[in-house]
Each structure stands twice: as C-alpha cells, then as structure tokens.
C-alpha cells in the first residue's frame, strides 16, 4: 500500500508500540480515576504486586509463559498474513492432549512425561488448527470465521469429554482426575535452589518457562533461517509474488496453521501439566486471545513476543493484586488488553502517521 507511512525500522519496532501502549495506559488511567480510585496508587500497587517479591515474579512469569506460547502462535500466522483467532480452542485441545498423555501412560519420570506431553499438546493443537487451515487453503473459507467457530466447537467437545469420559465416577466437577504426582513438573523455586537462589514456593511457574523461551528461538530460527520460514514470510508479503516464485499457497497455509496450532496447544503444558495437574473445563482462561495482543505488540517477532508476554504477565498478576486490595475489578486488565489491541492493531495508522510526519519534518530540516 502506497499510503503506508515511512518510518525508520527501529522506530517502527520501538516507537509505534510504545506510543500505542502509552495511549492505552492513559485511557485506562482515566477510567481508574473515573471510578474514584487513584491511578498512581494503582500503578504502584501493580508494580509492587507483580515485581516486588519473588512471589509476584513467580506469578508474572507463570502468566507470561502462557502468553509466550499463544503470542508465538498468533505471530507465526500473522507472518503469513493469516489471522488465527482460534488459539483459545487450540490451547483447549492441547490441554486434552496433555491430559490423555499424562493420565493413560504410566511415565517413569517427569522429564519423559514432559517431552511426551509437549508432543501431545502440540499434536492436538495442530490437529484442531488443521481443519480451518485446510478449509482456508483448499476451499477459501475465511480463516477468521472458521477459527472463531472452532473455539466454540472446542468448548463443546471438551465439555462433553470431561463430563462423560474423563470425569471420575462420583465426582460432580467436570474435570479429569489428578495426574500422578511423580510427573509433577519441577517448579522454578526447585530449579533456582540448585544454584542457591531462594524463590517463593507458591507460584506455579515451572520448567515450561524454559520450553517457552526455547520455542522463541525455534520460531526465530524457523522464520528467518530456514527455507520454509522464508516461504512463509514471502507468502505474507505478497501472495501472488510468492506463488509466482513457485511457493504453494495451499502448502504454506496448512503448514503455518499446523505450526500455529501446535504452539497454542503447547500452552497447556504450562497450565494443565504445570499448574492444575488435571484438566478442567476452562483451563485456557482467555490466554489464547491475549496471544493476539501479545503478537500485535511484539510486532510478530519472537523477541517482541517475550517482552509483550512479560508486560501482560505483569498486568495479569498486578491486576489480581489490584482486585484483591482495591475496588478495581480484575476486568480492568481486559480493558487494557482491548485498548492495546485497538491501538497496536486497528488504530496503527493513527499512531504511525503522526510519527512519520515528525520524522519527515526532522529530515526536511
């Protein structure tokens, strides 16, 4: 598009998201002020709650782990200019994969179980993304609509399986039995204890954090160092050009959705295996949707995704503290999330054009 405002690359990846998030925060502050609380105190409490103790850090990192997975999932799809809004359903199915692997196979050690559960989660998530991907590639069904529909179908499927199949007899709770204690994942405090760093034992942050960070490197390598990654990015830049260069749109669309669904599914390793140690009805808790905000803020780059995931981890943990100690409900975070999506995703041009003008003015001088 010729109207795309010209901005130096560094400004595009730093200035635009920072201005967007600043706008989102300013509006949120006005909202906090409007409901009669002090925005300054709220910020202080959030920072204190999320970063003031190893307890807070633990929760922040736990949430961030979820958001890294779902953020990467959305980013990979965005690179091919596909909007995978179905992370929620794919992560739910990933949870089913984790539960089946953990419940029905007696693993000798958590490490083997972790590898198997990761594969199970990725395979189930990828399978759930495959159908929308296939329909988009072969039948031209709009991927946004099909992935939305698949989120709802996933909720129904999971509800049925939990109530009718996985639920232990006599239990009223629509949830699977607990996994064997032998395969409980090591928590961060156990890992840090090995090197002599004390850390709170309470938060559920666990070894999946390392897997999430590892997946960032894998995705970076895949996108920028492999032939498939090049094809994905070329396809995202211009579909006709990619096709002319012999890249098959069908193949790329399906591959991208498989990778994206697999990444979203792997979130369940952290939430289902790492935290709850059983499958519950709403294990994803909206993290699939936060992936959209994380990917938009992180500019679809794994490094950006880590930073954005940390930001949202902070918002989630800080928001929980706010809800605990003030009259500001947790849903304030959903408002901030919405504003971030709005400014970084939809009102991109509103932020970008003034910045581009500023650069043009500086250059002209």
């Amino acid at each position, binding site marked *: 598009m010729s109207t795309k405002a010209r901005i130096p690359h560094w400004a595009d990846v730093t200035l635009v998201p920072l201005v967007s998030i600043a706008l989102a925060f300013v509006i949120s502050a006005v909202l906090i002020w409007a409901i009669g609380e002090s925005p300054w105190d709220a910020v202080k409490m959030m920072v204190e709650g999320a970063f003031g103790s190893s307890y807070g850090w633990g929760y922040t990192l736990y949430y961030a782990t979820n958001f890294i997975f779902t953020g990467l999932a959305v980013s990979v799809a965005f690179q091919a200019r596909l909007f995978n*809004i179905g992370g929620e359903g794919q992560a739910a199915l990933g949870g089913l994969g984790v539960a089946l692997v953990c419940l029905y196979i007696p693993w000798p050690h958590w490490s083997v179980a972790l590898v198997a559960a990761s594969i199970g989660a990725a395979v189930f998530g990828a399978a759930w993304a495959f159908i929308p991907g296939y*329909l988009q590639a072969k*039948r031209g069904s709009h991927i946004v609509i099909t992935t939305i529909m698949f989120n709802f179908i996933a909720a*129904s499927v999971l509800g*049925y399986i939990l109530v009718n199949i996985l639920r232990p007899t006599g239990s009223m709770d629509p949830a699977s039995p607990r996994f064997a204690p032998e395969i409980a994942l090591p928590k961060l405090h156990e890992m840090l204890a090995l090197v002599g760093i004390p850390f709170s034992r309470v938060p559920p942050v666990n070894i999946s954090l390392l897997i999430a960070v590892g997946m960032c490197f894998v995705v970076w390598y895949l996108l920028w160092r492999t032939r498939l990654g090049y094809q994905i990015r070329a396809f995202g830049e211009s579909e006709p050009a990619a096709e002319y260069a012999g890249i098959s749109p069908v193949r790329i669309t399906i591959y991208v959705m498989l990778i994206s669904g697999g990444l979203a599914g792997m979130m369940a390793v952290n939430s289902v295996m790492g935290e709850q140690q059983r499958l519950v009805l709403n294990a994803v808790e909206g993290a699939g949707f936060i992936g959209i905000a994380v990917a938009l803020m992180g500019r679809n780059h794994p490094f950006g995704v880590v930073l954005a995931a940390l930001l949202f981890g902070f918002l989630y943990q800080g928001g929980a503290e706010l809800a605990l100690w003030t009259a500001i409900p947790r*849903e*304030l975070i959903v408002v901030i999330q919405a504003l971030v999506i*709005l400014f970084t995703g*939809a009102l991109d*041009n509103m932020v970008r054009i003034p910045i581009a003008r500023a650069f043009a003015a500086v250059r002209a001088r």
Partner: protein
Amino acid sequence: MDIATIVQVIDSTLRLATPLLFACLAGLISERAGVFDIGLEGKMLIAAFTAAAIAYVSANVWIGVGAAVLASMVLSLVHGVASITFRGNQLIAGVAINFLAAGITVVIAQNWFQLGGRTPSLTGDARMARLQLPFADAVRDVPVLGPVYSGILSGHGLLVYVAFLCVPLTWYMLFRTRLGLRMRAVGENPAAVDTAGISVVGLRYIGVAIGGVLCGLAGAYLATGLSAGFVQEMTAGRGFIALAAMIFAKWRPWHAMGAVLLFGFLEAVANRFQNIEILGVGVPVQAMQALPYVLTVVILAGFVGKAIPPRAVGTPYVKEH
C-alpha cells in the same frame, strides 16, 4: 411430547431468536457495506449492560433501551474510526471492541452496583412488558389458531415484534432504495461508487451506524426482555452465533430470519430438554450447542452451496490520487 411443550419451545424460540436476529441484521448491513463486524458480541454486551443499568436507575425500560442504543453506537463509532477513517484492520478492531465491552461492563457495573459485575434484578416498569395481542384471550381455546396466536405469537416484548419487522425493512432498504443499492455497491466495488462521486466513507459509516443501532436493540432485549438484568458476559457467544447465521443466510435478510429461527430453536430445545433422543440415539447437549458453529463451518467450506461474502468486505478503501 405434547402440544403444550411444543408451543412452549416455539414460543421461547421466538424470544431466543430476537437478539440473534437484531445482531445478525446488524452484521449483514455492515458487511454489505464492506465492513467486517466481529464486534457484534461486544456491542450487544455493552448495550445489555447499559439497558439494564439505566432501566434500573430510571425505572423505565425505554430510557434503558435508548441508552443501550447510544452505548452500542459509541462502540460502532470506535469501529468506524479505526476501520474506515484510519483504514485499520477491521477484524482486529472487532476483537478489540469485544474485549473492551467485556472488561468495561464489569468494571462499571462493579463500581455502580457492587454486585460482582451484575446489575440489580429489574422489576416492574424497568422490565420489558409482554404485549398481549388483540383478541389473544378470546381465541385462546380455538384449536390450532389458539395455540399459534395466543400461545406463540402473542405475549412477547415489543422488541420481538420490532426485530421481525426489521427483516422486511432491511430487505427493502438494501434492495429497493437508492441508499441500499449504493451500500451494496460499496461492499462489492467501492472504487466504482467513488467514481460516481458518492462518498465511500460516508456510506460505510452509515452501514456501521445502522449496525450499532441494531446491536443496541439486541443487547437491550437480552437484558430487559429475555432476562431481568445484566450479568457478566451475558451475551455468551450470541454475537458469534449471529455472525454464523449471517453466513448461513449468505448475507440475505429473509434467509437470516430463517437461520436465526433455526439457531434459536436449537437453543430452546437445548434449554428445555437435558437429554434428547433422535431415532433412539441420545444426543448430548453439547452437540446441540455446537451445532450452529458446525453448520456454519460446513456452509463456509462450500459443501452445501458456497457462502460468498460481499467482494470488498474487509478491505479498507484507499482513494486513488
């Protein structure tokens, strides 16, 4: 299953279809004008909250309905500014609107009423009264006519009748007026409309604004007619079912009515019966809940007649210089 049960199920089908119908027509008009609207859910939600809150405070349901329409239109304006004026991604704008509504309704509800994100229950004039159609009592015992007229058609809130009236109105507006022709043209080929000297931006704003009004009515009925007050996330995916119905109807008003009646019926049946047996096979309630979405995917996949959206939907219009 006796007659009384059937009458009850169809009666509640009409009620459950009403918010879907408003939202479905909202999406239909917006997309006909070339703007994707996956923010139907959020617009309905903010309308539901505003309707309940204002109706409670003013003890007048119609003030609530008016406020709901305004609230929904504010979100439509946000949608329009983002996706028409700033040519942003229409889908992402819709997603943002859904979250904005999900968050802000609870934050404000908690601040105003301290009931954990709900509004107080509506009673008396704050709720939408059920209208008795003329002679409904007189013909109640007449066979066939009685159950259909008195049992099914009579006794709904005014907005139920308005919703079904909107179907011919939408059809007429889109297919028999100049505005409708231009609106459809802007959804198919905005450049042609621009060449004819008609404002693409203006037409798209009109489409999105009408959508806002209709979503406002959808939410208002949900909170004051179908239920008696607002609870967190009370739209519960209805905006997406409406979207599904719109695709199912292939962007045509009369078919949209058929689709929402089908989806409303599925919901009514799922509400009424815990276990459904069809031909001796038990159908789980989750399958009934998932059916609208599955049907939509099947339609989108083009296995049963292809659903082709308006050609320019989703693409911001960039004027050539």
